[in-house]
């Protein structure tokens, strides 16, 4: 009964708040500006690494558009069909805006 959290803001408060309210086994899908959190050395990247109780996903088009190398993270890159599959796999979706 886990939750898929979708983040789309590059500003840290969404991510900070999400990390606090998520349960073990929840997923975080980064899309839009939220993928900037994957930049090596960023504060958001450090924040993501402070916890390892969630699964991490990122939307492919947003990674590629911003030329972000996310290789330091254990994450799954998803296209739209895989995005849909994630929303089915998790019991509920929490879209942070």
């Amino acid at each position, binding site marked *: 009964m886990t939750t898929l959290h979708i983040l789309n*803001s590059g500003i840290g408060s969404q991510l900070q708040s999400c990390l606090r309210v998520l349960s073990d086994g929840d997923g975080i899908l980064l899309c839009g500006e939220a993928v900037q959190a994957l930049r090596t050395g960023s504060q958001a990247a450090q924040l993501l690494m402070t916890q390892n109780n969630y699964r991490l996903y990122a939307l492919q088009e947003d990674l590629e558009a911003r030329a972000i190398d996310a290789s330091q993270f254990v994450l799954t890159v998803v296209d*739209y069909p895989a995005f849909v599959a994630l929303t089915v796999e998790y019991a509920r*979706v929490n879209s942070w*805006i």
Partner: protein
Amino acid sequence: MGDALANLLNFEKFILMVAMRFVISVLSSSTSPATRRALRFAQALLAQKHEIVRVFFYQDGVLSAANNLVVAQDQEDIARQWQDFIRAYDIDAVVCIAAALRRGVLDHVEATRYQRQGGNLAEGYQLSGLGQLHDALQRADRHISFGGA
């Protein structure tokens, strides 16, 4: 025991492949990347044979339901793409009436009621209340919203 486990795993796979009923809330205007993302997601949903119970336009999302947006030729017209999608697949598209009126999106009935010049609600969309969001949530397996950036 091994067979039982295999059956269980197949059952899980089966569950994952079952068509689900989705409500999509669009909360951002057509210039926001979130509104484009919502459309691409909705298209992918139908491609996988899931059902869209309703698309509910709320907050600045109501702005995508206006038929008088003019977009430069070298830019994607996401509002128009949404409108084409709604009509092509006969999607139940509800625009929150209170949110729409305060942002200048009116159908002909409301335009007449408030003595404004003509309605601008795109064809295929309906103005209605927030009860329509709740009605859809009650009939849906999943709710996903797109807003912000």
